[in-house]
């Protein structure tokens, strides 16, 4: 993990140092340090109760840390002169007065920074809530509420976006839109920090992943590195002369498991080794497929001990 203190202050960068939040006896966030760099999408993962939302609320000054600091562009959020143009926040869909129309909500938020009506209409258009903008936010579906929350986050065209579960409740079109949009924003050089429970979605969206568990940072690494470290690559091998192939490989039986007649799964050898061995002994190969672990596999391996609310294994 890079040492946050050694890095120069970069616009849009989020730096947490020994960030801690206690509620009575319970420590929700426990000495967390990380850096969220601009120009890439950083995924924030962790089981329920791991401290993701609390950390995000501390970043934007809603919750005061018990100890430690967190800064955006080198400054405490509360000291930002124009927070909405620096940081866009979606904490959850329920940060909108239910009695106010979507457009009036956005107008009121925009007014705090002197942002004009044109920009309000722009974000309404951008997030696709034009047809319901005049309706009371209380009547919105979860997905529409998310879109409104994202619209509010985009009002100030901010350098940094902090999105807590942005795709929660969105339809597939919306999920894809969020993915492409945040990737586009990161490509423009902005900082994007987003949390999600959808691992497949996260693996398509994030460049870098920070995993929290029980209030601590379990991992902070580029996504491919995280996956390769925490999962094993298995080889699917299909051949009519499997027994010959296996003995030619000279590896312990434990790493080989039969899947169906003529097909085995091998752990701990590369496809190259198997291919070379087959060629050297003239053994035909029908299939040689490396199966890379998924982000989900890596995540589950990482957080196994730190899942607070665990479901019972179905026997």
């Amino acid at each position, binding site marked *: 993990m890079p040492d946050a203190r050694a890095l120069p202050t970069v*616009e849009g960068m989020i730096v947490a140092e020994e960030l801690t939040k206690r509620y009575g006896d319970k420590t929700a966030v426990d000495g967390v340090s990380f850096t969220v760099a601009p120009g890439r999408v950083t995924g924030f993962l962790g089981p329920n109760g791991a401290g993701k939302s609390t950390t995000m*609320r501390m970043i*934007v*000054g*809603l*919750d*005061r840390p018990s100890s430690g600091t967190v800064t955006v562009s080198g400054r405490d*959020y*509360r000291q*930002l*002169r*124009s*927070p*909405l*143009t620096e*940081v866009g*926040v979606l*904490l*959850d869909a*329920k*940060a*909108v*007065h*239910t*009695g*106010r*129309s979507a457009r*009036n*909500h956005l*107008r*009121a*938020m925009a*007014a*705090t*920074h*002197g*942002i004009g009506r044109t920009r309000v209409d722009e974000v309404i258009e951008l997030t696709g809530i034009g047809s319901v903008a005049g309706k009371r936010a*209380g009547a919105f579906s979860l997905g529409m509420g998310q879109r409104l929350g994202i619209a*509010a986050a985009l009002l*100030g*065209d901010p350098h940094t976006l902090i999105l807590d579960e942005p795709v929660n409740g969105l339809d597939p079109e919306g999920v894809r839109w969020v993915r492409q949009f945040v990737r*586009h924003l990161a*490509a*423009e*050089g*902005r900082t994007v920090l987003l949390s999600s429970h959808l691992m497949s979605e996260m693996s398509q969206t994030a460049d870098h992943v920070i995993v929290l568990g029980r209030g601590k940072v379990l991992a902070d690494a580029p996504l491919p590195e995280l996956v390769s470290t925490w999962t094993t690559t298995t080889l699917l091998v299909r051949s009519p002369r499997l027994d010959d192939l296996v003995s030619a490989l000279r590896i312990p039986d434990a790493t080989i498991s039969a899947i169906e007649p003529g097909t085995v799964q091998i752990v701990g050898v590369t496809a190259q080794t198997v291919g070379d061995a087959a060629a050297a002994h003239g053994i035909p190969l029908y299939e040689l497929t490396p199966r890379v672990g998924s982000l989900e596999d890596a995540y589950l391996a990482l957080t196994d001990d730190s899942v607070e609310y665990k479901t019972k294994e179905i026997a």
Partner: protein
Amino acid sequence: MTAVAAAPRRTSHSPALSLSFAHLLKSEAIKILSLRSTWWSLGVTAALSIGISLLIAAASNDSAGAFPAVNVVLAPTQFTMLVAGILGAIVVTGEYSTGMIRSTLTAEPRRGAVLLAKALVVAVVMAITTVVTYLVAIVLTAPLLTVGLDWSRPAESLVPLVLGVVSMAAFTLIGLGFGFLLRSGAAAIAATVGVLFVLPIVFSMFSFAGPSWQWVVDAAAYLPVNAAAQLTTPAGDALVQGGITLAAWAIGPLLLGFVALRSRDA
């Protein structure tokens, strides 16, 4: 690489966009005026006030001018003060119950400024409503009164009316202060109604308790509703005491609310 990815850091947003207190006031004005509950509260305040004024005006015909004309306009305050206090409370507690407060405080993290802007906007909205209500009440009751308002004697007309407007704004701020302090709509409304309506009744009960309890009855003068009564008495002689008392009631809960807003997590 796409053109987007190769683009330098964007410089699209205008540096003119930034927080200011004036912007914050505008935002709070949009917020309060875009809620149905506000218009209901203001409508109920106006309807109650004008309706009761008309009733009193009609009734005062029989008492042949013993009832000062300005009181015809001001008397409904005993009821409308509750609506004012409740409006003040729900302006804040509505934000807490819906989560809106998180949007508010991320847009303006200086919490004192948020409280001040809300206080100014809600007080001004209530003051304007009260001015309009009084004007309508004065016009509508004039034909019913044998002795009308005498504008040449401001102490018995303009001064009590202006102080009546100030009192309504103060009642609203009491509710607002309790809203910031207690956050829950039910608790803040209970506290507001308790202070404005219930406490005066409790205090007055001690008048049956004999002379040794007289101090409790006297202390009731320092309740907001009685302070407002002193302020709005025609040609009243306790304007300073009433003014200080009411100001303390308006500012006290707001200060406590400010401490809570600053120190507690949102």
